[in-house]
């Protein structure tokens, strides 16, 4: 009897250990079940809720297209939404939530200063994250992150594009640059300034104004009156659309008539509404191409399904980069053949040939930046729609 009890105890003990190990393995593997969980971290509420909502819709459309084509590794893609409210503090919480829900990879986020704390958390937890609207140079250049990538371009590319266009295409002799002190806007403004340095050295142009306005304010009349006194040929504002709309209208009211060029967050249909069509028409914008001007195969499928589900296509370029982040993750998982973060990151860096997204080929540098992001100069036409102005 004694022996058998002991034996029974031993068997029970072994069972327990085995069960424990099995549980551990289950946890380590993360993704058990029938779906592949990919998280989208975006500003679903907060100041840029509109952008976040469009990103959510775009990712849902991309996920549906991927699932229709057979899913990922034979499983369906499931999108988890975590909301960072476009706020660095909430961003860390959102990232923790995505980690605790065992996302295989993360898309996000929109703003650079919001993405930074989240990227650190994903890095620590060894989860691949792919930013879609965060364009600050420092995200990839100040610090080496193994698991961070982005599908959007960098501020220096946009600043360089502006400098070249303003001097060589428009022939501007007096350039005004205005930002709003946010990481993003100041980044683009600084890069534009850097891009102009060689032209200034050659005496081809000069920067007559470089200052910031305070975001969320409504009255910029003092700033635009000062700006008018510097008599600029062209005025580049690198901040966001609520301020851009107010600025251009107050500038026109104060009698400043020079061409207005917005950075890629300055112009969308709300900009046109706030500024008023009479004032907004003719405003220019440096930006990655809008989805309406992209003609890849995936883009046409994406546009068709998006229009069917949500009627209007995304009015800013960023949501599409969120969809492309999902295509990049899906492509890398497919190439890696498993849901292991190291294998996914390795595939993202070197084995993405043939992986296509809405905006074209999805290739990344060793630092995680996307290769060959195109820029275009857009213009608000007399009906208030954005059309390609050139280059």
């Amino acid at each position, binding site marked *: 009897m004694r022996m058998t009890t002991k034996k029974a105890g031993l068997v029970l003990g072994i069972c327990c250990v085995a069960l424990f190990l099995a549980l551990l393995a289950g946890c380590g593997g993360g993704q058990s079940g029938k779906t592949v969980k990919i998280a989208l971290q975006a500003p679903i509420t*907060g100041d840029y809720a509109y952008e976040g909502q469009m990103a959510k819709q775009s990712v849902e459309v991309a996920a549906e297209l991927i699932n229709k084509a057979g899913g990922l590794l034979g499983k369906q893609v499931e999108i988890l939404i975590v909301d960072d409210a476009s706020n660095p503090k909430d961003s860390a919480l959102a990232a923790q939530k995505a980690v605790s829900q065992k996302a295989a990879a993360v898309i996000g986020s929109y703003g650079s200063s919001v993405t930074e704390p989240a990227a650190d958390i994903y890095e620590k937890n060894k989860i691949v994250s792919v930013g879609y609207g965060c364009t600050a140079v420092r995200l990839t250049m100040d610090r080496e992150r193994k698991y961070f990538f982005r599908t959007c371009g960098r501020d220096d590319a946009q600043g360089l594009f502006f400098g070249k266009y303003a001097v060589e295409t428009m022939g501007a002799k007096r350039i005004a640059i205005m930002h709003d002190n946010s990481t993003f806007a100041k980044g683009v403004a600084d890069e534009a300034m850097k891009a102009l340095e060689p032209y200034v050295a050659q005496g081809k142009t000069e920067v007559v104004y470089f200052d910031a306005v305070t975001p*969320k304010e409504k*009255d910029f009349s003092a700033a635009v009156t000062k700006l008018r006194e510097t008599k600029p040929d062209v005025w580049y504002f690198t901040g966001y659309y609520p301020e851009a709309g107010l600025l251009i*209208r107050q500038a026109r009211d104060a009698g400043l008539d020079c061409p207005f060029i917005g950075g890629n967050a300055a112009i969308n249909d709300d900009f046109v509404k*706030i500024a008023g069509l009479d004032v907004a028409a003719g405003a220019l914008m440096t930006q990655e191409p809008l989805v309406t001007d992209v003609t890849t195969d995936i883009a046409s499928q994406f546009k068709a399904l998006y229009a069917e589900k949500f009627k209007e296509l995304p009015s800013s370029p960023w949501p599409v980069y969120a969809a492309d982040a999902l295509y990049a993750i899906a492509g890398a998982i497919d190439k890696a053949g498993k849901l292991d973060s190291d294998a996914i990151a390795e595939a993202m860096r070197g084995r993405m040939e043939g992986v296509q997204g809405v905006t074209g080929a999805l290739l990344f540098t060793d630092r995680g930046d996307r290769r060959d992001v195109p820029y275009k100069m857009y213009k608000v036409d007399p009906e208030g729609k954005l059309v390609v102005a050139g280059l």
Partner: protein
Amino acid sequence: MFFDKGRKVSTFIEQLVNGLTVGSFYALVALGYSMVYGVMKLINFAHGDLFALGAYLGYSLLTGATGKITASMGLWGGMAFTAFLVALSVALAGVLVERIAYRPVYPSGRLSLVVSALGMAIFIQNAVMAIWGSRPRAFPASVVPSLRFSLFGIPVTLLQVTILGISFALMLAIWLIVEKSSFGAAVRAAALDRETATLLGIDVRKVIFFVFALGPGLGGVAGLMNGLYYRAISFNMGWNYGLKAFTATILGGIGNIPGAMLGGLILGVVESLLAGYVSGAWKDVFVFILLIAILIFRPRGLLGEKTAEKV
């Protein structure tokens, strides 16, 4: 840095007018803070968000189905009707805020009141976001014709002149009510010493009702004018104006009604001159240095809170 060579005097005057327009918004909102503080010794943090509520109510009245009704009354008639309805509804909201969030916690002390006020501010802001959405709304261009003209060589808009006119008229009216009418005397008495005022037969409850209707009513109209002037409104606009108006209140002397008006106008002009002649990026830094300096050298503000002589 001020008055560089080549800067025209007209630009300076233009910056002054710019500053006065912003300042008159600050002043109208500051009045509400100051009146409530005078009587309740409470900083009504929800006041800035009542200002935003006024802007949104005005937006709803001037657009969509109700927009047709207001448009049928003509420009001035429609505006007056809208302003009246906005003032009435925001005044009602102000009274409700007092009933729901302040009166029940009044006996438990000032800390509870402040927390309750902060909670109310968050509640109103999020309610506005839930009802009207998180995207900024734009007043349609058709509502307000933009008439530009030159006044002594300074480019101004008809709207700017009208807003300045209405703001000053409202401020004058409040000043007259508080300083000259018998009800104003009751308000001032309640502000000086609530208990003694009660002993003297002043119905302090009525006084509180009055300040919580009048302050938010004014704030609501200011919100409407703000929306019409800048055409863009956002659910979180109240925070910024609330903060600046609160600064203006302290600048002029909290609890002092002419002080609130003066503080608002000074703040607007200083901001505008700093952005115009120094640097837009450093504007708020200097504004708050000014505030701290005033608090150090004149702790009761420019005009000073009226204090009773204790004999």
